[in-house]
């Protein structure tokens, strides 16, 4: 699989234009995967020429990438995979995209997602599902499905994603690439379509850990335009701390999780032990409630954040309406997918007077208990390990008619989101039918670089070249 340093060598040997043209050609050749919604070809080639003439430089000079289509970026519409924003031309760019461009990176296109990032399979896209990079009958995972598939297919060496409850980690695991959901507040969310403000994070998917580190180092940092960003802390670690104490989350290693996935997690644990780390079983009694907490808090925040899509200032507006109320109602009915509506309506329900205490307030209290349990474990353990999802990529259409079944796939990724913890998804091998298996490492707040360093020390050529 292609990595950033190989791409930089190619640019040195040929030109940024040739490398970018190659990436764009590949994106077109692989269009049947539906990983990329719109290419930013014209702007990408102009920027590539500027790299070649020395006008643009930096750590990623000429390196192509794709951004999930909920990042505002120039050169193509920012659709959030919705009819609502189908023709929305961003007036400015996300801070993360600007920072990458300042280091010379070249955005070649906008990746498919579940509309407004609501989903775990990319089947909720208004423009059709993305196909899994390994098996086209299977889902890409989601919501950053297009980003994961574009990376796994080697169209680009890295892609930007967002993770609110697993939307980077799960598609990374379904397609065999690395993904990071950083500590809440690590990367500015300015210029990214908001979903659930208390758990939304920006991260990256790539073919190896070193590339994730490089991109994270560029993107992270405080931004006056996103008041939730933390003071700068992300700094790449050369070597992981030795003799780490790691907890394997036993609640995630039960019969509800495919045996082949558990086997791969156990194999990884053996490697960690062989490298001198101590691995012990741990359990969190609150984890069984995490999904219920998540599907109260997140829809509540969605109903609030998506109120801005009203057909007035930008985006889709319904035709032939007589009143303002009708304009709102029809615009939103036409602009949103069913899953968007479900979540908005659940949010309206749990926030209604009379239900607020029993649902929303209760969930926020339960969240405190979940946080306390993780904090308690991190007094003893440097990191926690477990699967990313209970299954490998499922068939397209298999879960789409049953939202609860679909939500259950998020059961192991939502805890870190609710607590704000960094979590990475790394390839751990393949099952018998050749589908990628991912493994998750979760750490305490701000331990992002340390988790990456640990995973890098366990990264083997076998996995990244297979």
């Amino acid at each position, binding site marked *: 699989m292609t990595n950033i340093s190989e791409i930089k060598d190619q640019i040195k040997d040929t030109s940024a234009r040739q490398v970018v043209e190659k990436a764009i050609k590949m994106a077109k050749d692989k269009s049947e995967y539906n990983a990329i919604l719109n290419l930013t070809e014209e702007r990408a080639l102009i920027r590539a020429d500027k790299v070649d003439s020395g006008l643009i430089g930096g750590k990623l000079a000429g390196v192509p990438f794709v951004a999930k289509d909920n990042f505002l970026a120039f050169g193509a519409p920012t659709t959030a995979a919705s009819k609502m924003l189908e023709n929305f031309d961003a*007036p400015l760019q996300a801070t993360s995209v600007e920072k990458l461009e300042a280091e010379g990176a070249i955005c070649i296109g906008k990746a498919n997602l579940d509309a407004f990032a609501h989903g775990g399979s990319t089947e909720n896209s208004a423009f059709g599902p993305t196909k899994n990079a390994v098996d086209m009958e299977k889902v890409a995972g989601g919501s950053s499905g297009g980003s994961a598939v574009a990376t796994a297919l080697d169209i680009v060496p890295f892609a930007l994603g967002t993770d609110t409850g697993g939307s980077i980690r799960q598609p990374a695991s379904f397609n065999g690439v690395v993904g990071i959901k950083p500590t809440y507040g690590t990367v500015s969310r300015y210029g990214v379509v908001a979903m659930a403000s*208390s758990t939304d994070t920006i991260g990256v998917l790539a073919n190896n850990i070193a590339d994730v580190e490089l991109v994270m180092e560029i993107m992270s940092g405080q931004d*006056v335009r996103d008041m939730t960003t933390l003071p700068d802390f992300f700094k790449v670690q050369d070597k992981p701390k030795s003799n780490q104490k790691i907890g394997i989350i036993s609640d995630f290693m039960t019969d509800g999780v495919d045996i082949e996935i558990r086997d791969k997690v156990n194999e990884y644990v053996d490697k960690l032990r062989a490298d001198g780390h101590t691995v012990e079983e741990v359990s969190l009694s609150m984890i069984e409630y995490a999904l219920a*907490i998540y599907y109260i808090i997140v829809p509540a925040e969605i109903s609030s954040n998506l109120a801005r899509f009203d057909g*007035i200032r930008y985006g*889709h507006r319904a035709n032939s309406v007589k009143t303002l109320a009708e304009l709102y109602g029809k615009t939103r009915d036409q602009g949103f997918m069913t899953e968007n509506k*479900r979540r908005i*309506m659940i949010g309206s329900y749990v926030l209604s007077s009379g239900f607020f205490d029993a649902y929303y307030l209760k969930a926020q209290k339960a969240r405190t208990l979940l946080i306390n349990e993780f904090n308690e474990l991190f007094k003893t353990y440097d990191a926690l390990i477990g699967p990313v999802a209970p299954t490998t990529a499922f068939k397209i259409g298999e879960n789409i008619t049953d939202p609860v079944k679909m939500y259950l796939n998020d059961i192991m990724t939502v805890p870190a989101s609710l607590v*704000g913890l960094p979590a990475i998804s790394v390839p751990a091998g393949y099952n018998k039918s050749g589908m990628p298996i991912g493994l998750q490492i979760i750490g305490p707040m701000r331990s992002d670089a340390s988790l990456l360093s640990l995973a890098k020390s366990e990264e083997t050529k076998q996995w990244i070249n297979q």
Partner: protein
Amino acid sequence: MTQITRDDVLHLAQLSSLQLDEAEIDGLQMDISNILGYVEQLSKLDTDGVEPTYQVTGLKNIWRDDKVIDYGVSREELLHRAPESVDNQVKVPKVL
């Protein structure tokens, strides 16, 4: 378990400014009932005396100077994105 009626769905749709298509109502009624049925398991949990957490990193009251930041986006560029505009303003149907 909470039973969500068809009227409840219509009420929630109204609260959410969604003028639903007839065909979508039945499905949403079932889905919302099932989802609420799932999250109701939280009622088993004892949260007496527990403080809620709304923000996980503890940042609060982050202030900045009350100065206009120039984002380099003009009034014209923004108006151009409105579905309808007239005389430098966004046009909407009458409210009443």
